[in-house]
């Protein structure tokens, strides 16, 4: 199942840290996400695209998972070698487009 078929998401950042949020549409979806999109699984997907160590914060009361990746954006947003500025606004699709069993 595609993560983004049962959740919505948004990317943010502070300094060199990337900050991703997923919110499941319902309780069942949250439990599926919480059990499948583990810290290890999320780290593996993120590492295909950027450096940094990922930490996951489950927020069951809000049906949300947060993923905070320190040093994902070395030197901060403006030091990027991506085209233009703020590519990280799209980084949540690394997780939304993930297919998990």
């Amino acid at each position: 199942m595609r993560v983004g078929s049962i959740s919505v998401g948004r990317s943010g950042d502070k300094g060199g840290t990337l900050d991703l949020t997923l919110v499941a549409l319902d309780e069942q979806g949250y439990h599926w996400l919480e059990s499948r999109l583990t810290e290890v699984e999320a780290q593996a997907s993120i590492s295909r695209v950027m450096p940094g160590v990922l930490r996951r914060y489950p927020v069951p009361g809000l049906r949300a998972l947060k993923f905070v990746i320190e040093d994902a954006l070395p030197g901060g947003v403006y030091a990027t070698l991506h085209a233009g500025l703020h590519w990280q606004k799209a980084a949540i699709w690394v997780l939304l487009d993930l297919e998990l069993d």
Partner: protein
Amino acid sequence: MEHRVVACGAGFAGDRTEPAVALAASGLVDAVGLECLAERTLVPGLRARRTDGDAGADPRLERRLRPLLPVARANDCRIISNLGAANPLSAGRQIARLASEIGCSGLRVAAVVGDDVIALAKHIEWQEPIVGEMLGAHAYLGADALRDAVDDGAHVIVTGRVADSALFSAEVLPILDDNLDALAGATTIGHLLECSGQLTGGNFEMPNGDSLTAQDFAELGFPLAHVRSDGSADLALLDGAPGRIDILTCTLQLLYEVHDPSAYITPDAILDLTGIRFEEIGPNRVRVSGARARGRPTRLKVSGFVEQPGFVADIEIGYAGTHALQRGRVAADALRMRLDNLPQKDLRIDLVGVDSTLGSASLPSPNRTPEVRVHVSARCSDAQMAQIVEDEVYSLTLSGPAGGGSVRSERRPSLAVVDGFIDRDLVKTETVWERAS
């Protein structure tokens, strides 16, 4: 229960100007906050201030306030903004002059100063070594720095660096219950409001691809909040304003950029957001409650801006028509060969329209694409090196695959933002008043 109505009229320096006017004109709003100062938006102001002591405020100040001031005044709506950027004192004078010019006589402007802590540099505990020239150091002030201006009835409060949430929570301070959880609630509401359209359906898409329509995005309403003395609030749009406020848009904005949701550090309180409850109480109307405080930080965060030599050169060249993707790939390979003397860590070459954003996590690309752009970014030690990289891309128009063109390039100066901390008792703030004649 006593309440105040606070609205967001801007969520970043370049944000639209009409929503603030609509909110003020509604007559429903006690204060409209304009958040106009991102981490680095201060830097052009700091540079301008070096040569002209009266410069350094946001250059968009007049564009934003000329239409807003008379409407806000007529509707008894306070304006609270960090438009002061690197020079809130000058911004205060500019606003008073503008108000005099457009007939808002007697308008009282409070400039809050004290965020500039460069004079206290030896007390700042930097989190990494400072390499290069420090342009400035600014502390994130809390809502308490705005309290005098609110209590003394300022029509406009203008600041430099303050926590974004404080631009909204300051209005509520006089009615808040005397406990830290109420302050945590008001700060949380400020955090929910501070990114304008991100609470009302901007930057939002449902799993099936549904989002607002083009017309809704073009006329998107910005949010307002009825904040009660216990720190709970009802979030809403003006009647008839396009947008979407529901549990999903609220949850995404609540958790936006907070890192650890059980300990989001703001100058006013360390927020525990894990017990927040959202309740949809009507169309585009959501009740929020349950914020808790985990103490108040004893230190303020400081951002230091350090100028370093060098640039990032960012260049693109486009290919179109039959075989465009193939020609783009060949061009990218040729550039990799031409630039193989650059360290790999300082160079990125990819295809815009294929994989320039998400790299190897990109969706599979189609075999045929009507056009593609080859992108090169390189970290360059000086202007001459940047020129060489730019010229290498241009050279493909003569010595590369057929039809290369639509070239564009930009150079971004190298600037580091270094985090630091300072004891909050050392940071003295002051309110300086101006009055429109």
